[in-house]
C-alpha cells in the first residue's frame, strides 16, 4: 500500500473516519511510536463541542434528533502549506491534534510511512475488535430445530 496515492476523497474520508472512531488508547501508542513531529501552526486550536446525532423514524422515515455526542476538532497547517483537520469522538485534545497531524501527513510524501505505521495497524486493531464482537454474537445465534409431534408420521 506504500506506493498508493492518498489524495482521493474516499481515502481521506476513510482515514479521517478511522481516526475519529479509534479509541485514544489505540491511536496514541501508534502515533507515539511514529515519532516524527512536523512543525505546524494552528488554524483552529483544539476545541471540545457537541454534535446532535440524528436518526430516522422507523429507521427510514423523517429525521429526528436522538441526542448529542462529544467531539473535539482542530485544524492546522504544516510548513509546506498542507492543511490537516482533526474531528474526533470524545474530549481529548491530544487525540484531535494527533488526528489533524496524521491527516496532514497523509497528504504529503510521508503518507506511505504514516499509513504503514499508524493507519494500517490501527485499522487492523479496530477490525479485529469488531470481528471479535461479531464472533461472540454469532455464537449466540439461535439454531432452531422442529420437534415432530402429533399423529402424523
Amino acid at each position, binding site marked *: 500500500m506504500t506506493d498508493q496515492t492518498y489524495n482521493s476523497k474516499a481515502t481521506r474520508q476513510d482515514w*479521517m473516519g478511522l481516526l475519529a472512531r479509534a479509541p485514544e488508547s489505540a491511536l496514541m501508542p501508534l502515533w507515539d511510536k511514529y515519532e516524527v513531529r512536523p512543525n505546524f501552526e494552528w488554524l483552529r486550536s483544539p476545541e471540545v463541542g457537541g454534535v446532535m446525532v440524528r436518526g430516522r423514524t422507523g429507521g427510514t422515515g423523517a429525521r429526528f434528533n436522538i441526542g448529542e455526542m462529544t467531539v473535539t476538532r482542530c485544524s492546522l497547517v504544516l510548513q509546506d502549506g498542507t492543511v490537516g483537520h482533526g474531528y474526533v469522538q470524545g474530549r481529548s485534545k491530544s487525540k484531535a491534534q494527533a488526528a489533524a497531524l496524521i491527516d496532514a501527513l497523509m497528504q504529503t510524501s510521508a503518507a506511505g510511512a504514516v499509513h504503514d505505521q499508524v493507519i494500517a495497524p490501527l485499522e487492523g486493531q479496530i477490525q479485529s475488535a469488531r470481528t471479535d464482537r461479531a464472533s461472540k454474537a454469532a455464537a449466540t445465534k439461535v439454531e432452531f430445530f422442529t420437534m415432530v409431534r402429533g399423529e402424523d408420521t
Partner: protein
Amino acid sequence: MYVAVKGGETAIENAHAWLAEERRGATDIDELSIVQIREQLGLAVNRVMAEGSLYDPDLAALAIKQSRGDLIEAIFLIRAYRTTLPRFGYSNPVKTDEMACDRRISATFKDAPGGQVLGPTFDYTHRLLDFKLAAEGEVPAAPTAQPRTEATPHITEFLKGEDIIQDEPASDTTPGDLTREPMELPSNRPLRLQSLTRGDEGFVLGMAYSTQRGYARNHAFVGELRIGKVAVEMDIPELGFAIDIGEIELTECETVNQFKGSKTEPPQFTRGYGLVFGQSERKSIAMALVDRALRWEELGEDNLGAPAQDEEFVLSHADNIQATGFLEHIKLPHYVDFQSELELVRKLRREAEERITPKEAAE
C-alpha cells in the same frame, strides 16, 4: 416574594464536605475509578447517556461517581454539562440497517435473514443471585463462531414487499430540536421521539405498560430489536464532504401493531419506533409502544382518552430533570410564603370561631 436570608454559608460548606466524605465511603475500601464504572456498570452509564442526552461514556461514569449512584442526579450533571458545549452541527441520520449487531431478535419472524442473535442478554437467566460474583475470579471467555460479514437488513423490509405494513417514507425535513427551542403543542413525531428517547425510563415504561393493560390498546409485537454500533457521519464544511466523526452504540426497537384500517388507510400493520443511546432495551421497547399510542390522530384512530394518547400529558411529564427540579424545589426555604399562609389560616380560624361563639351564647 423572596427575602434573602443570610447565615447558611458555613452550614452549606460543611454539608458539602460531609457529602464528599460520604461519597468516598470507608477509606479502607478501594476507591472506585471512572473506568471501572464505565466498564462494569455499563447499563447505568447507558441510561445516564440516554437521558442526559449526551453520548460520552467517560463523562457519564464520572457523573455516576459524583452522584453516588443517584442516576437522576447524574443525568442532571450531564444535562448541565452539555449546555456548556458549543454545537458543531448535526449528524446525518444514522444508518441503523448497517449496524454491527451484538443482538438482534424478532418476535414475529423466526427465520429472518441474519437470524435470531441473542447477544449478551439477561433474558433466560434465572434471576437468582449469583454469589460467585461476590468472590473475585476470572470470567471464562465467551464462545465464538464464524462471524457474519453481510449487512443485517431491517425485518420490516420483508413485509414491505407485500405492502401490508405502513411505510416510513424518507424525508429530509429539518426536525425541531428540544435543546434549541421549547416544546410547543401540538407537537409532531420527530419532536415526540426526541422527547421520549431522553425521557425518564420509569415514566416511559409506565406509560407503555398502561397501553398493554388496555389504556389505548394497540397490541404490539416486537418486530425487531437490535443493539450494536453504528458510525455517526457528519458533513464537514471545511472539507466539502462527510466523514465519520465517531461510532455509538444504539438500541433500536420496531414494533408491529395490528391495525384494522381507518377512513384513509387500508387494514395493515402499523409501526412504533424506539431508538435509544447504548444498550437500553427496556427503554427502547417502551418508547416504541408510547410512540405508537401517540400516533392515533395521524392514523385516524379514535381518541380513547387514555393517558398514553395524550401528547401533552406524556411529553410534559417525561423529562425527569424538569420533574425533579420542580418536585425538589419545594424542599428549599419557603419561609416567607409559609409565613403568609400561616397568617391566612390563623385569620380564617379566628373568623370561624367568632361566627360560632355568638351562636352558642344565644342558645
